[in-house]
């Protein structure tokens, strides 16, 4: 049994006891408290001794919230914008304007899919040059109107493909770095899952602590 399954089992047991507690009027609260304590301790133990690979697996866990989940939960009035104005629109990067506590901000996030269908659309969160160029366009738009930029990073890396090379993905990433270094509006970047390689750094604020992203 994996450690994760042990955790699930404990959680289920606690839930069961809670239900019983309600129905029968038997006082199980001491037992519940004991199990909850155990659960917390076990979880702490488990997550403080993860191997590198386990960390990666956790970062890629399909139950983690993705960029659009965070956008839905954090922002209001998200208005998605599409396209790089040059050759395409990349669904692996979502971008748009939204409100955060009443202030308009630009949001840019790398988006994975949950189902096979979604992942076909989102390309498993691996952006193409069109996605980086869309991100750049939205950064410049934000700068023009002094909107802060918030980026959500979650990618195994830029998409390695023929078309990506033909469309000079190297340039797309490089110019994004240049753009973010110059941008006259704040950029706040958060790694919400994994931040792999140039694919992550291409939308990461220059002040983001670089250990969050690893070279691929």
């Amino acid at each position, binding site marked *: 049994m994996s450690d994760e399954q042990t955790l699930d089992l404990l959680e289920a047991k606690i839930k069961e006891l809670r239900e019983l507690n309600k129905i029968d009027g038997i006082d199980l609260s001491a037992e519940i408290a004991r199990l909850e304590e155990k659960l917390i301790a076990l979880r702490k133990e488990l997550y403080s001794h993860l191997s590198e690979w386990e960390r990666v697996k956790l970062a890629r866990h399909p139950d983690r919230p993705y960029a659009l989940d965070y956008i839905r939960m954090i922002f209001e*009035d998200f*208005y*998605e*914008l*599409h*396209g*790089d*104005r*040059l*050759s*395409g*629109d990349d669904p692996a990067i979502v971008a748009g*304007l*939204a*409100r955060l506590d*009443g*202030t*308009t901000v630009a949001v840019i996030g790398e988006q994975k899919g949950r189902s096979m269908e979604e992942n076909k659309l989102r390309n498993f969160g691996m952006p193409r040059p*069109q996605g980086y*160029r*869309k991100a750049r366009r939205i950064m410049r*738009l934000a700068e*023009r*109107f*002094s*909107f802060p930029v918030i980026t959500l990073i979650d990618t195994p890396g830029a998409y390695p493909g023929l078309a990506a090379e033909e469309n000079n993905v190297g340039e797309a990433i490089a110019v994004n770095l240049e753009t973010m270094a110059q941008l006259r509006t704040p950029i706040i970047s958060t790694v919400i899952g994994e931040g792999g390689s140039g694919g992550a750094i291409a939308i990461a604020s220059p002040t983001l602590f670089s250990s969050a992203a690893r070279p691929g």
Partner: protein
Amino acid sequence: MAIFKDKKYFRVDLTRKPDESLWMRCKSCGELVFKRRVRENNNICPNCGAYFFLTARERLESLIDDGTFVDISKPIVADDPLGFSDTKPYPKRVEEAQEKTGLPSAIILGSATVTEIPVVIGVMEFQFIGGSMGSVMGEQICHGMEEAIRRRVPFVLVSSSGGARVQEGIFSLMQMAKVATVRTRLAEEGIPFISIMTYPTTGGVLASIASLGDVIIAEKGATIGFAGRRVIRDTIAEELPENFQTDAFALAHGAIDRVVPREELKNELGRLLSLFVEAG
């Protein structure tokens, strides 16, 4: 050599009554439909949902808050700098277009509010020589952008145009550079510019002001492209894809931000504007 003249100018009158006949036939589904119902339905067929053509006036009314429009256009109409004549002399063509549309030129320009947000708005009239951009339209667009800067309100432009006006030759081409130049001042001043592309947004209008929006929205069913389908097909002698130069084509190729159904256009524009306006 004059490129404008100031006679025969008249203001846009939104109270002008539309055609009084009661019924029309939908070209898409063939059904006879009650004209008033079509009008009340944003010129969308109540039977099959097909979009009928909107005049610039109707388009304007469908986007702005009732009774808020004030014409702010310059009192100019087209002159004939080249002495141009094809099947008929250019001045005659302009005169006929003025009679047909009741407009002095191929664009309406004014101030208004959209969901209570003040804007300067320009709307092109396709029925006025294909909504083509000559000296007058170029000048009105620039004037609109300058007014938007002066009033510190967003600029909204609804395109419906075949492109630059061939009858004014180089003077039309110059308008492309002129509107693009003034557009950069909007950017410097931090004034939002929303470009709305409708059927059709092509040629020199697409290759200048329409493509320069901070945000570009296309109405569902818009044709968006630079060179005409026939020109391309005859040049490269290849069949073009079915969706060539459609709204979906433009979206897939990164040219526009969104495709919006006609009935949602006003609300969507309001939502978008509010993100820009309330930020300051």
